[in-house]
């Protein structure tokens, strides 16, 4: 009788303690099912992670399928499958439908590579799992205070996505054809007027076309930093109007007299390679080198950034709210920012994408490895790129410019 009573008391005590612990854990992490990292690894083993991403860049596909997938299998027993999509916004639409239909678990998408616009949509509609990024062991290598990591297109990240790499816009040209390319946006615009039919940009809402329009927007408004602050309706409307006017006036000097536009940067790259236009635009500083290496561009192709700078950003991966393999996805996201994976990704022979982690935070041997990476013949130096960076405006500006471009420039209203 006494013994039974004691057991009961211990049981009661344990329940109380575990209740306290649970309450403490709950108050510390917003996730009720928070696991320690070793538990995450345990759950992840054997899971199959379907990673939906834009599949238009062969070197990215090769990096993911040829390197990341076998490595996460080897290290963590996670089966990674890349699911290439044309536009990740299709997946966001799909998630929204699943949310409406109440499909809260067992979703098809485990990990997705998203951009700022779609991140904003996902965040506003609670389509994301997390915060999870702050729980990844390798996040200590990321400098979260950097504006382009802290905010994704002006939208606070808040641990809902994990950085993967960084990118910056560069202009691509063939030095064999154009020995002295224009150095500023103003000079480029003059060049376009003087050489009708030799320039094109992809039609927004294509990502690359859209970023070109934002450079014009910065050019006419004369100040990139201003737009990072509070949104100013009046100033925006003035600058946007000037942007559309300029692009509309420029249209007859474009490829095909601006009657049609390339649908994406891949088509634009073909036009440059085929000699139909003299410039291409890329959001990947090392893409031109990679394409020379692959024999798609001639050896004489080079890149440049404008004197006033070009737009740069960080790209992220996120986990949908209903992902079937959340733990597996977290393990993959963590592996992506490991020094090993980031170094491999930065290799121009592989992809040449710029690191999302802060190289300074690594120990000297790793730093040395990053610094001694061969740079592609057409890739600008880190210094040249980093001293010419402009921030992305908040995605509200981006969306309004895309809509405005379609209305005023494309349809001429």
């Amino acid at each position: 009788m006494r013994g039974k009573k004691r057991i009961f008391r211990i049981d009661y005590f344990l329940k109380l303690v575990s209740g306290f612990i649970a309450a403490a854990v709950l108050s510390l992490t917003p996730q009720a099912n928070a696991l320690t990292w070793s538990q995450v690894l345990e759950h992840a083993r054997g899971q199959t992670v379907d990673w939906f991403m834009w599949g238009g860049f062969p070197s990215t596909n090769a990096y993911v399928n040829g390197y990341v997938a076998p490595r996460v299998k080897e290290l963590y027993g996670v089966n990674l499958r890349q699911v290439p999509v044309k536009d990740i916004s299709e997946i966001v639409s799909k998630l929204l439908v699943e949310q409406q239909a109440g499909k809260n678990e067992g979703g098809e998408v485990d990990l997705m590579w998203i951009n700022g616009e779609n991140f904003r949509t996902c965040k506003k509609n609670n389509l994301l799992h997390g915060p999870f990024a702050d729980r990844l062991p390798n996040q200590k290598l990321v400098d979260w205070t950097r504006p382009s990591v802290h905010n994704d297109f002006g939208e606070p990240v808040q641990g809902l996505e994990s950085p993967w790499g960084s990118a910056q816009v560069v202009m691509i040209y063939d030095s064999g054809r154009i020995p002295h390319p224009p150095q500023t946006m103003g000079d480029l615009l003059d060049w376009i007027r003087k050489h009708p039919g030799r320039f094109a940009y992809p039609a927004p809402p294509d990502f690359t076309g859209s970023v070109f329009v934002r450079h014009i927007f910065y050019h006419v408004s004369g100040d990139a930093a201003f737009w990072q602050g509070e949104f100013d309706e009046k100033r925006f409307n003035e600058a946007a109007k000037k942007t559309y006017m300029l692009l509309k006036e420029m249209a007859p000097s474009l490829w095909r007299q601006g009657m049609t536009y390339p649908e994406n940067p891949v088509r634009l790259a073909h036009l440059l390679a085929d000699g139909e236009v003299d410039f291409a635009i890329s959001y990947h500083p090392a893409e031109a080198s990679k394409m020379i290496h692959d024999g798609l561009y001639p050896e004489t192709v080079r890149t440049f950034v404008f004197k006033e700078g070009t737009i740069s950003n960080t790209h992220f991966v996120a986990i949908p709210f209903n992902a079937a393999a959340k733990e597996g996805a977290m393990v993959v996201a963590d592996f992506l920012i490991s020094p090993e994976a980031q170094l491999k990704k930065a290799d121009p022979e592989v992809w040449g994408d710029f690191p999302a982690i802060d190289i300074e935070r690594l120990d000297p041997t790793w730093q040395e490895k990053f610094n001694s990476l061969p740079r592609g013949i057409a890739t600008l130096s880190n210094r040249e790129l980093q001293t010419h960076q402009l921030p992305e405006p908040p995605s509200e500006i981006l969306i309004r410019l895309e809509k405005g471009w379609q209305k005023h420039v494309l349809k001429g209203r």
Partner: protein
Amino acid sequence: MNPEPLNVYTISTDTDARTRESTSLSTTGVLVAPALLVVVVLFGGGLVLGVIQSLAHFPAADSDRLTFEHFANVLSDPDFLQSLTLTLYVSTTSTAIAAVLSIMLALVLIALSVRYRFVHFIFQIPLTVPHLVVAVAVLFMLSPTGIFSRFALKFGLIDSSASFPLLINDRWGIGIILAYVWKEIPFITLMILAVLRNTGVELLEVGRTLKAGPWQRFRYITLPTISPSLGAACLIVFAYTFGAFEIPFLLGQTYPMMLPVWAYKNYSDVDLLARPEGIATGIIIAGVIIVAIVLAQTLIQAARRRGVVL
């Protein structure tokens, strides 16, 4: 294009009156049921869901009330008429060209009495090529720096790639029409050949003994013989070209865009409010196709009643 309707038709022409009589209604019902079920549940269900979504308020949280707002937005868009005209123009033109060329091709093949099995085999190859592949092939061949242009440049037919005629992403949808014509000719030809092979030759001989000229034989014997299957094939092709997305997306102009491209753009817009409009556009496309089919059937019936042989 799915080759299935073709098989269905071939079977029905091969079936003679006796077997049709002996097949009881219930057996037919059992045989048709699986296919009918799939069509009704998957296609009809999708259509109904689409209609509901295009009528629903957004976000879904307060979607108790139905609204015609999205349809109104699409229909009142100044671009709608332009897109509709362009889409109608592209699909009727490509259907008409494909039909005329198919009739000519079928007649030649019958006249040369080419072995049907061989023709069937050859024609099945383009039928199995996806439209997307056709679009990319057309792009590589006909763009200003494509294969044709490069050959023309090499042989001095043009002085620079800029003087090659614009056939891709052009104002008149030439690239789109060419891609569709290439893809649909084998389909229509096979449909016509199936009929001509069974009935055409004897009747033509009768016509010849009655001293009918080549044009008379074509007008009063061949055309009435092939017109039901030709009409059916043309309607399928029209419906497909009116609603398909990939070829106009790759080979069309950025603006004005064909209705299917417009629907896709709205559906995949970052602005989620554009989604119901994308679905509404899709429903409108389906509506136009249904109207076109009903109209075509009514016209044919009326023509038959008035005794016009067609």
